């Protein structure tokens, strides 16, 4: 039999129909829905008088345009308010499961899906959001789609697509304490560029992946889109099953055993092929920080801004007010942010709190810590993290996308410089005129204390714990 990798296996298991010269009709198992990219898709259903094909394969929540202050029910922006209300109305009319504020499961789509156990190995998962690759951490093919395609999935449970190429990214070695999955994926993007994986689905493999928690794997897969990949995934293993067991939509009893047997069969065959393979050794990797206006413009924290003469880099340097050969370390900051679908999970809250414990952030820094979901918030509260974070002078807020994209109340002011655990440092991404430096939550927390960009490594002991 032909040797197959996990991408081939999951893809092939979802082909409803493949005609010569046509894209495949690909069955979609799970579609996440949020307020920004769904209204026009529901309109399509109404215009064509079509029902939702399978309401139980959908899951909706609000995240992008909502406020994260305490009284978040009150949305001051009239358009955002109408958009949120529209989702409430649409999910009601079409009978789509909806986790609204205070349902105890509201949050960023990519945090909520896994935590409810809807995200499972071997699935095809879509959402009108480019960071859908997050769900690939469970061994699913998960990718972002536009609103028209959301409409197609609503109506038919399928979409049309040509099979992407496959790429293996192997992370070898072991991280030094204080270096994380975020740093690994930023290194990958810096190496291959923002278009480096265009047209490919990535399978992440290697020793560094095996030892990663599910949270870390989600961080890694999340940023696959930043090197242009259609999706990124990791084969399921014990960590995956341990995470899923007991979650709301995870199978139970006999069905659980059947599921594990199927999921195990999805692993890539030994000697399978990929269209491309890249190997990155993480043993000597340092924490990464972006310096420019796209995620590829990033360096290790002890490096200086490279000499690059293309227009793109020159424009970027003008925008971020930095220059060639300048060290990125010690760059003075105004804002800090931990949150988003990249780093808004419980582990991220834990590492942030551990670094902030019994310390104060620098006086001139405003630091928002925003949980990815109501579940993350509840757990952070149980573990006493919220108090620790607030006592440091940082502000723990309500769940949502917050400062990740500059479309709700949380924005970095024009000209201000923010170190951020998010995934994009595009011009104006965190608000018009804002300057973003991407980094891991550990780097963000350490830098917030210092008031400038610093490495978090000093906070970690040899065992990788924060002393």
């Amino acid at each position, binding site marked *: 039999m032909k040797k197959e990798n996990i991408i081939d296996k999951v893809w092939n298991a979802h082909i*409803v*129909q493949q005609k010569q*010269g*046509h894209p495949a*009709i690909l*069955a979609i*198992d*799970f579609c996440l829905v949020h307020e*920004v990219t769904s*209204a026009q898709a529901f309109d*399509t259903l109404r215009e*064509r008088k079509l029902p939702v*094909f*399978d309401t139980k*394969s959908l899951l909706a929540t609000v995240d*992008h345009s909502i406020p994260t202050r305490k009284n978040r029910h009150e949305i001051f922006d009239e*358009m*955002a308010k109408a*958009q949120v209300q*529209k989702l409430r109305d649409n999910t009601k009319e079409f009978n789509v499961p909806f986790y609204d504020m205070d349902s105890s499961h509201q949050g960023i789509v990519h945090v909520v899906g896994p935590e409810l156990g*809807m995200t*499972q190995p071997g*699935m095809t998962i879509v959402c*009108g959001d*480019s960071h*859908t690759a997050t769900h690939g951490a469970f061994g699913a093919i998960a990718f*972002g*789609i*536009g609103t*028209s*395609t959301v*409409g197609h999935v609503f*109506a*038919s*449970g*399928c979409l*049309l*697509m*040509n099979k992407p190429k496959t790429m293996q990214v192997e992370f070898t070695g072991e991280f030094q304490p204080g270096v994380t999955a975020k740093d690994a994926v930023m290194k990958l993007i810096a190496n291959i560029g923002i*278009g480096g994986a*265009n047209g490919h689905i990535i399978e992440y493999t290697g020793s560094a992946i095996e030892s990663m928690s599910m949270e870390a794997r989600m961080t890694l897969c999340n940023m696959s889109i930043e090197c*242009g990949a*259609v999706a990124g995934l990791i084969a399921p293993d014990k960590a995956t099953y341990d995470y899923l067991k007991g979650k709301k*939509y*995870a*199978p*139970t009893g006999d*069905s*659980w055993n*059947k*599921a594990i047997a*199927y999921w195990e069969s999805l692993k890539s065959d030994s000697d399978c092929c990929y269209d491309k393979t890249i190997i990155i050794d993480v043993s000597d990797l340092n924490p990464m920080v972006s310096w420019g206006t*796209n995620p590829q413009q990033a360096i290790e924290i002890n490096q200086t801004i490279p000499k690059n003469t293309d227009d*793109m880099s020159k424009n970027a340097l003008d925008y971020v007010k930095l220059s060639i050969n300048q060290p990125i370390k010690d760059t003075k900051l105004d804002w800090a942010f931990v949150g988003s679908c990249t780093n808004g999970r419980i582990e991220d809250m834990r590492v942030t709190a551990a670094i902030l414990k019994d310390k104060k952030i620098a006086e001139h820094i405003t630091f928002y810590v925003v949980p990815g979901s109501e579940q993350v918030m509840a757990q952070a509260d149980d573990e006493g993290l919220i108090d620790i974070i607030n006592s440091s002078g940082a502000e723990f807020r309500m769940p949502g996308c917050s400062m990740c*994209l*500059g*479309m709700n109340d949380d924005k970095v002011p024009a000209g201000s410089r923010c170190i951020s655990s998010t995934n*994009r440092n595009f*011009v104006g991404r965190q608000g*018009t005129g804002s300057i973003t430096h991407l980094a891991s939550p550990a780097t963000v927390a350490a830098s917030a204390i210092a008031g400038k960009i610093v490495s978090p490594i000093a906070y970690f002991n040899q065992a990788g714990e924060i002393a």
Partner: protein
Amino acid sequence: MKAIKKIQGIAIPMNMTDIDTDIIIPAQYLTSTSQTGYGQHAFSRLKSDPDFVLNQSKYSQAPILITGANFGCGSSREHAVWAIKELGINAIIAPSFADIFANNAKKNGLVLIQQPQDVVDKLFNDAESSELILKIDIENQTIQYYENTLEFTLSEFFKHCLINGLDELDYLMSNIDNIKDFKQKQVSNSLFINRQ
């Protein structure tokens, strides 16, 4: 969808690479729930520069955009495609496009034409030095300008949809019985959602 067979008119040279979707349409304009009204905000961050190419009146309603590699990278927001279409642009020529943007373009009859870097560079030169009129023939997959003819590839299926004004959703719905059968089998073999 409207059938499109030919696109003809002035080409806009936007000589930049990696134009991302936050540049095409910033997130602050995404709170609208309608499919229109985005054109006025297209490229708004670049428009504050008086030298930006789209600030030149000769390019208002120009139907073809020539631009650099990896156009449309970033977010999945289809609003980016809607905004560009509202500017009157029906075709984009570039060395490469980001995947989600390319998929979204297809759903809206925005024709993306991939050409090698050196060809795109030449088109930039020509369009920057004088008004460049291109004739794009979808059926024959050619671009004509002056005496030159360039060829381009389009997926067979997309071309079929484009010249016949067909819609992907119609195609999917015409296969709905197959889809239902498929999904039925899946539930007993390979899907394990606990639906309660």
